[in-house]
């Protein structure tokens, strides 16, 4: 892959303040997730947040980000008409809710 003149990994937000400061909506709270893994992909089906269960009706998008050696998988999911962003860190095996998307 020739990327001499363009580097898709060059990020302007590399030195932005941390996510909590950068994004006032950030929750970063630990959740429990029921998910299945198939063909090297993750499909979250439901999550438990503050003792309430949220059934995932639809995954609208998913993407990944490498944070050092950890790979974080992000999912924007719909539960009862509300959109949430949740993520899974493959290094810590931690699921968290990142934010409620308005």
């Amino acid at each position, binding site marked *: 892959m020739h990327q001499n003149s363009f580097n898709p990994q060059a990020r302007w937000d590399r030195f932005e303040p941390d996510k909590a400061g950068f994004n006032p909506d950030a929750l970063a709270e630990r959740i429990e997730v029921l998910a299945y893994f198939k063909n090297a992909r993750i499909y979250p089906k439901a999550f438990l947040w503050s003792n309430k269960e949220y059934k995932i009706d639809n995954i609208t998008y998913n*993407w990944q980000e490498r944070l050092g050696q950890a790979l974080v998988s992000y999912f924007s999911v719909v539960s009862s008409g509300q959109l949430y962003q949740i993520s899974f860190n493959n290094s810590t095996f931690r699921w968290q809710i990142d934010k409620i998307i308005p």
Partner: protein
Amino acid sequence: MILHIDMDAFFASIEQAINPRLKGKPLVVGSRAHKMRTVVCAASYAAKALGIHSGMPSKDAFSICPNLEFVAADQAKYIWTSGEIFELLKGFGFLLHYASVDEFQMDIQGYPEPLKLAAQIQEQIYANFNITASVGIAKNWLLAKLASKINKPNGVTLINEGNFKDILSATPLIKAYGMAGKTGQILLAQGLKSCWDLYLNLPGFFTENPGKFEEMPEKPRSVSHAYTLPRAQTNPRFISAWIRVLSEMVGLRLRQKNLTARTVQLWLNIPQKGDFLVQKTCSIATNDSYEIYLRILKLMAGMPQKRPKIRALGVSASHLSPQEYHPLLIEEKRREALVKAIDRINSRFGDNSIFPAQVILTHK
């Protein structure tokens, strides 16, 4: 034959795929979270129809459309999507290159059905990512890129000898690659209004351009980073901290490519006064971010204005060569070991896990 794939309003389309509520609405993606103090880095087609475009201050965009939807840019998802689209396109088996984060060029020399191929590419991109792309096909990359802009969004345009004149006549000059800036203005002033006028005066511009593939050098000619501040600043500590950030980014990229630079350049945008550009070439090449920072500070100290009001700034390194110098002095060796240790920590735990304390000043 080149096939140029240009994603339609890429960042905004991804945000609309994530959040279906935003579909069809005027939406801008801002480079920072504060929606009134940032710059539009992508606008949806509904926003573009209102005259909102990339590079516009967000407050101007909101004055045009007070009900504008706003999302702060999250580069991780755009970079990931770009990489996944690249992988998908590689599956078609042609020589493929990035033209930018949202543009890809495919060399389809000899392929008999380019329009069918374009339709397949569009279908697969939509099926996988729920976003659309426009495709341009022509005999060289410049015309293919131009073609990709003609039927946006989700269009396909083939420029061949039969429609070459019609398409170029109907396309304003400033749509051609490299004509959006001063060059375009100069040619417009000379009466060249369409791409056809440009062709009649400079036929080689469209026909003899060898293609971006061939132009790619073995190593970059320069490495640079720039940043637009939320508002113009005079505080020298704040400005220095940003120079430090940009120097860190430039130094890191040099080290990742195992290159060193002899020349450093500082670019400042000063409101009402314009751009200030100064550079210095040293005999000893470096890729140490701190050394780049110190060299830039010396350039800054030579400015006639002592406390300039700065809106945007950039750091660039050029005269690049492979890293061959090995430090001999103990201090130099210690410094090199420190830089390597910092790079290892950031590689292990993620970018920005450890950074110079001075960078904290930019967070305010």
